[in-house]
């Protein structure tokens, strides 16, 4: 079980929660379960969400494992110059 | 479209007079080609005047200087005699565009483009310069300030070409200066500008003065009241403040992408003050 923190706007889409507990071993499973448990998040996931694991931001590595006790933070997937 | 390079000013004038569509004179091309690129003008006839004899020369005569219509501004800066006599005119001409543009642009083109923001014009007006106009009716000489009549408009008739700009021989103890305000250090069009031309007496008192302000009205302004402020003075602080006030007051500027009414009015005075100080020093005043 990992605790996942949602950024402000995403929390609104998840029904006003800013932290959720999910049983997930990697980012792929996390997104799958988030979409199942919080259907409001599905369009956000489709548009792109980045996952910060202990401060390191992962945009595309969905196979990245989520270590127990790690700080998991969801962020918008950004554009750069 | 035709491109023609006549060998005489009369031929050039004849070509222009006889043209049926839009005709354009090409000297440096730094305004014409920009307007062509933007699609603002599509001339049917381009008359390149650079092959005309004498038009690419600066001549020093007993009356002063005659600057041919095809002389690039960079060449003005390379003429020691002209720079010594009319440093303000030369510095104004050398402020137009970049080094690249300097190699092409001319003061006659700058004058005939008839922009109120033209850099060389306030300096020429302050200098009392004259333009030699050749046309179907012959040759005439007019004051440069009589050439532009409004933004993009001149008093020249169909078939008329300015052949040269005349600058008088300098009396002793004379100096001129030109300053413009631009946001960057180079490459901009003047937001507002001022040219001042002074002749002093042996005591350093201003006897003759001409003050012109640019980019502050539809055409460059010759501010007689400002000249009156300077005449009889030795450019003390109070005179300079009055000069600034008079020049600011004479402005009839607009708000546009380059500046505001308030900014132009205020800075016109500041530049007039600073240009007058430089001109005074150049005339040997202390």
């Amino acid at each position, binding site marked *: 079980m990992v605790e996942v923190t949602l950024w402000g706007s995403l929390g609104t889409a998840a029904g006003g929660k800013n932290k959720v507990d999910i049983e997930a071993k990697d980012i792929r499973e996390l997104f799958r379960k988030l979409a199942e448990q919080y259907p409001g998040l599905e369009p956000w996931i489709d548009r792109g969400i980045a996952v910060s694991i202990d401060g390191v931001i992962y945009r595309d590595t969905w196979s990245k494992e989520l270590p127990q006790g790690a700080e998991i933070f969801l962020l918008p997937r950004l554009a750069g110059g | 479209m035709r*491109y023609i390079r006549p060998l005489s000013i009369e031929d050039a004038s004849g070509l222009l007079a006889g043209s049926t569509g839009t005709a354009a004179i*090409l000297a440096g091309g730094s305004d014409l*080609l920009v307007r062509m690129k933007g699609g603002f003008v599509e*001339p049917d006839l381009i008359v390149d005047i650079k092959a005309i004899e004498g038009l690419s020369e600066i001549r020093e005569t007993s009356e002063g200087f005659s600057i041919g219509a095809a002389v690039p501004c960079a060449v003005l800066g390379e003429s020691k005699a002209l720079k010594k006599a009319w440093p303000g005119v030369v510095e104004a001409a050398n402020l137009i565009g970049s080094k690249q*543009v300097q190699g092409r642009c001319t003061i006659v083109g700058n004058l005939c483009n008839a922009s109120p923001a033209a850099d060389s014009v306030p300096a020429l007006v302050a200098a009392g310069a004259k333009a030699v106009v050749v046309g179907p009716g012959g040759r005439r000489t007019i004051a440069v300030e009589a050439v532009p009549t409004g933004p993009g408009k001149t008093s020249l008739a169909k078939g008329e070409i300015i052949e040269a700009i005349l600058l008088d021989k300098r009396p002793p103890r004379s100096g001129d200066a030109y300053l413009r305000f631009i946001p960057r250090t180079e*490459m901009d069009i003047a937001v507002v500008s001022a040219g001042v031309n002074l002749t002093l007496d042996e005591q350093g008192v201003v006897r003759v003065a001409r003050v012109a302000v640019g980019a502050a009205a539809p055409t460059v302004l010759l501010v007689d009241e400002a000249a009156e402020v300077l005449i009889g003075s030795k450019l003390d602080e109070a005179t300079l403040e009055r000069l600034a006030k008079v020049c600011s007051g004479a402005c009839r500027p607009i708000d546009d992408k380059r500046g505001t009414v308030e900014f132009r009015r205020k800075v016109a005075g500041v530049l007039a003050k600073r240009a007058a100080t430089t001109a005074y020093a150049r005339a040997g005043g202390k």
Partner: protein
Amino acid sequence: MAGVAVSTTINGDNVEYLCQPDETLLDVLRDRLGLTGAKEGCGTGDCGACSIILDDRLVCSCLVLGAEAEGRRVETIEGMAHGDRLHPLQQKFLEHAALQCGICTPGFLMAAKDLLAKNPDPTEEEIRFGLAGNLCRCTGYDKIVRAVQDAANVMKGA
């Protein structure tokens, strides 16, 4: 529209071409003669990327008609190196990394060459004002100015 026949010299070679009366020298160089070293950044003389030297004067080739080159001498970036030997300015631009994207580089090199021909020992301020007609958006100009200073030193010694 009748074409204008032009006979001129480009980088020391006699060249003849036919161009339209309203065609710029830049378009002639790039589209008719395949000399694409001069770039069009603006077409209005504001960026200097198309700088060439015409009868010893630095000009923007976008502000010159192709027809005007008749009987004149044109120098472009393609003529700057001698064979495989780079001009000192080219060499110093490389050494100082005075280019990032490089689109402005041909124009800067022509302008710097003209500057040093007229003023072999310029101050930093003279270099900066001398190159003010060439826009660079990548470098902040620092390394360009240093490259020109260094090239000037080399060329003085030569």
